[in-house]
């Protein structure tokens, strides 16, 4: 699949933003956070979530109809994502205002924020996980990976050693995701044979292309450039998203400026991870062009 920068930035930045908000919500529920921290970190979470959502807006080819994406929540995960993110961010704004003015907070609002921001990340991941056409996405590892990527990133600013646990869970899920994506069994049902109505093992080769130039389908869904360097990029991603942040947190615990630096490195790693998430994914339409 085509790794569009707008989509990668959207999933990385809004994932981090909602991850941060869910950690704030959890701490607020558990009475483990000061009112000043709620305001400061909620504004940071809000900022990244909104930047991410704006980035996704630039992916749309017909932006004037974007508002209509709130209408089909009964069937569409993308629609649920749009509604859930707007709803969650409204509560964040309300919470910031209340805490700022009253200098106290409701624990109940914390649990609502925690669950709603997790649900928003889940809806984002389900946009991809629902697609039978992309077998490497079409399993529950995708939501698990998206949620723990967001939680791990969001926890770096607010939690010390506890963020190491979340980073570790993220790392395990990430390696598992790459391992599963490499297995040939995920494509066990589809082949050029079934694509043309024959049996799975029918020996068929493309004889001539259907068109003389590239087209939307090839650009969007038959993206192959990345696979050449995939393994190297996985190492870079894993090192930047997990190994380096973990070492820095162990060496400099509770150091805010180090945390900001760690998040910068972590972002680079997650950006590469998401780039691979798209670039390595194989869509069933590619069987017509084998």
């Amino acid at each position: 699949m085509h790794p569009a920068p707008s989509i990668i930035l959207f999933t990385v930045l809004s994932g981090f933003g909602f991850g941060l908000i869910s950690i704030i919500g959890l701490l607020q529920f558990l009475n483990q956070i000061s009112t000043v921290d709620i305001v400061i970190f909620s504004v940071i979470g809000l900022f990244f979530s909104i930047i991410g959502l704006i980035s996704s807006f630039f992916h749309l080819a017909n932006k004037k109809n974007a508002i209509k994406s709130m209408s089909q929540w009964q069937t569409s995960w993308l629609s649920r994502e749009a509604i859930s993110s707007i709803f969650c961010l409204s509560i964040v704004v309300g919470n910031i205002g209340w805490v700022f003015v009253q200098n106290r907070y409701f624990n109940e609002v914390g649990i609502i924020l925690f669950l709603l921001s997790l649900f928003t990340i889940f809806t984002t991941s389900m946009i991809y996980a629902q697609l039978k056409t992309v077998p490497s996405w079409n399993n529950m590892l995708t939501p698990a990976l998206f949620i723990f990527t967001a939680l791990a990133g969001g926890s770096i600013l607010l939690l010390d050693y506890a963020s190491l646990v979340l980073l570790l869970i993220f790392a395990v899920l990430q390696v598992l995701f790459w391992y599963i994506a490499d297995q040939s069994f995920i494509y066990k049902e589809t082949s050029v044979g079934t694509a043309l109505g024959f049996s799975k093992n029918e020996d068929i080769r493309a004889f001539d292309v259907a068109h003389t130039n590239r087209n939307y389908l090839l650009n969007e869904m038959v993206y192959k450039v990345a696979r050449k360097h995939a393994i190297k990029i996985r190492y870079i991603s894993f090192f930047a998203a997990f190994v380096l942040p973990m070492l820095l947190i162990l060496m400099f615990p509770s150091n805010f400026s180090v945390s900001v630096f760690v998040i910068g490195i972590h972002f680079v790693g997650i950006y590469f991870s998401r780039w691979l998430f798209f670039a390595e994914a194989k869509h069933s339409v590619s069987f017509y062009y084998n």
Partner: protein
Amino acid sequence: MTKLPKCEDKKLGLLIDLDTCVGCHGCVVSCKEWNSSGGEKQLSDINSHQKDPVGTFLNRVHSYERENSCTNEAETFYFPRSCLHCEDAPCVTVCPTGASYKREEDGIVLVNEDDCMGCGLCAWACPYGARELDLVSGVMKKCTLCVDRIYSEELPPEDRVPVCVKSCPTGARAFGDFNDPNSDVSKKVKERGGVDLMPEMQTKPVNKYLLPRIKSKNSVSSVGSVVEEETDATGLLGWVDRALSKF
């Protein structure tokens, strides 16, 4: 709404015979022509008369080769690929704006371009690559089964079929109601064993394909026997043959 209706009345679709298709791309050209003429809706092209032209098509014809298990020789066949108007159309349910829908009365899957925001998710959800985002208008394009022809009251009755069916010079494409067991397409599907594409995707396509039949050894060697028979020609050719054989 993007909820899928139960199309219990009619299931309109195409039956494509790969044994008959000669890969002339006539359906591709006529489809592009019909869907770009008249009205504001266009299938756009970019750089159409320059280097690297790209354009939107609702129908594309691929060609493949496979080994004949009988003669061990490679055989080519042609494969027109377009929307299959699936009963469980994943492209419809993923649409966030409600632009994609499946008609309850005849099962045709359509895009309401006034609602489409061009996110492209429906194209990702379609296993068959049947949807293409128009790069000029920014909205999703797909086969309409020529809904503006088949119900037209202005066209003569014989023209009220999708233009790809009308234009096919070999009759490889047929249009009809797959819900009616007595329709021509249903009878042909039963008789020749019409198949679904990628049944594992559980989309329940309405369009069916008739696969190329494997040519037997007899049908291939019979070409040779025709040539041999000509040596036993009668009449004028026979006289020439006999006369020349004397020298």
